[in-house]
């Protein structure tokens, strides 16, 4: 079977406390519901949830969403260590790809939805990012910035597409609901083009525009 792994790398630093973290936690059951009731999508995709603040925590190891009925909630507190987030992600990707292959699957390049509401508080994050993007299974990263996140940082983290919250138009909670819907759509539509035996490859379907966000041009940088 061809598998497309999705990682949600989500900021749970202190500034996410309140509506923002609640919005993501409320959106996760929607995502699970949509994927788990669609067996064709569930067969071909896997999902992993990593929360990061002072350190990064693998809250839900990579899983077929139709095999779980609960997931640890995100809980806000602490600083914003991008470096630990990328190091943890890299470890997960390498172990997960190896495990899927050992089960007899073939694995497409992983897709990461990265979300942050602030600027990184650690200094060596760019080194960790470099190690991630230079690794053998370098994932495709779609980065979303809300709140205090800086456009240049979000654009730096993304290597596929980047989005910034439109400050005046929507609240962070509204933007986060749209973020989660966009992630769900991406999983469903991408899986729709995957053949179990690989076939002619597949199309990674990521929204060109997300309501409440402006699309950041990566070409400028």
């Amino acid at each position, binding site marked *: 079977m061809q598998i497309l792994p999705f990682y949600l790398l989500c900021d749970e630093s202190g500034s996410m406390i309140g509506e923002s973290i609640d919005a993501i936690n409320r959106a996760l059951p929607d995502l699970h*519901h949509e994927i788990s009731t669609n067996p*064709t999508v*569930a*067969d071909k995709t896997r999902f992993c949830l990593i929360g990061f603040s002072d350190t990064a925590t693998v809250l839900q190891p990579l899983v077929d969403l*139709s095999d779980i009925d609960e997931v640890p909630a995100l809980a806000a507190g602490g600083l914003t260590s991008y470096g630990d987030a990328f190091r943890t992600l890299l470890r997960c990707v390498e172990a997960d790809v190896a495990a899927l292959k050992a089960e007899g699957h073939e694995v497409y390049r992983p897709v990461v939805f990265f979300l942050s509401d602030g600027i990184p508080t650690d200094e060596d994050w760019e080194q960790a990012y470099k190690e991630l993007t230079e690794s053998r299974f370098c994932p495709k990263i779609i980065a979303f910035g809300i709140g205090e996140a800086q456009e240049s940082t979000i654009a730096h983290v993304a290597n596929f597409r980047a989005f910034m919250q439109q400050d005046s138009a929507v609240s962070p909670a509204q933007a986060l609901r749209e973020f989660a819907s966009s992630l769900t759509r991406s999983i469903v539509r991408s899986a729709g083009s995957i053949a*179990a035996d690989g*076939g002619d490859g597949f199309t990674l379907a990521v929204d060109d525009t997300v309501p409440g966000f402006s699309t950041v041009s990566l070409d400028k940088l």
Partner: protein
Amino acid sequence: MSPVDGADVPLHTLALGDRIGDGGQGEVFDVTGPGRLLYKSYREPHKVDGRELAALVALRQGLAPADRDRLDRETAWPLCRVVDGGRVTGFLMHRAPDSMTWRTSRGDTRLNELSYLLRAPKAAWQAVAQPTPAERQALVVAAVELFEWLHALGLVVGDVSQANVLWTVRPGPAVHLLDCDGVRLVGRPPVLEQADTPDWHDPLAVPGTVTVDSDRYKVALLVGRVLSQDAYSAPGRRLEPLPGVLDDRREHAVRALWDQAAEPRGERPHLGQWRIALAGRETIRLAAAEPAVRPPVDRTKFDGPRRRGRISLRD
């Protein structure tokens, strides 16, 4: 009323309700009013072949009442075109029967797609009532008979997949075909560029083309995958039907056809063969099918190479 007589309906006369579906080629909307109708709105109307869509509408209008009832019962056939100015924007169709839907734990309604017959049940879709082994066999028969009938009407179904065949076992086993604007008359072009579903393509077909023969292959996939509850099995691999779905005679006959479906185009079993195999009838080998024994021929009676001597004309 146009859904009744098949005449075109202007878009502005429709009272559209909620958007209930979003597919690759278009969106589906509820139509407020009588008849439980849906409107499929094409995303790229300029690519639609309006004449072919009209031909599908006309085919339904030309059927005898009993056949038209069957078409409406078993398919979401285009009832009439929807037009805006001179352009065809979509068509009206009946909503799938309520018995072909299920309700999720959160109360939203989903279609009872074939995909729920193709793998072991999961908690997330436990509300889908699974068939007994006998009902599973009956569902396969219902699907084969529907496709056989569509072929008899001179149609090519084209895209057969886990998403466009619905099923139910309440009150009895029945199937329902969606996306019928993807069906075409044999030898005619499609309404829109041919859609194909990953894992359901005919490996021997030229990409983008469909024929009665590719339909036969895809129906073989449907039969084998439903019987074995395996979303990815295909002819060429051993068929493992679920226990109790087929008796020995049927299993023997179905296996033979499954293997035959892996053969080149033109050799694949037609749908009548599947129906007979699934019905468990014995087949009788007909003597006339053997070449008749030819009588021996006396070759000396025919002209042929011969040995001639030479005659000397001198003494």
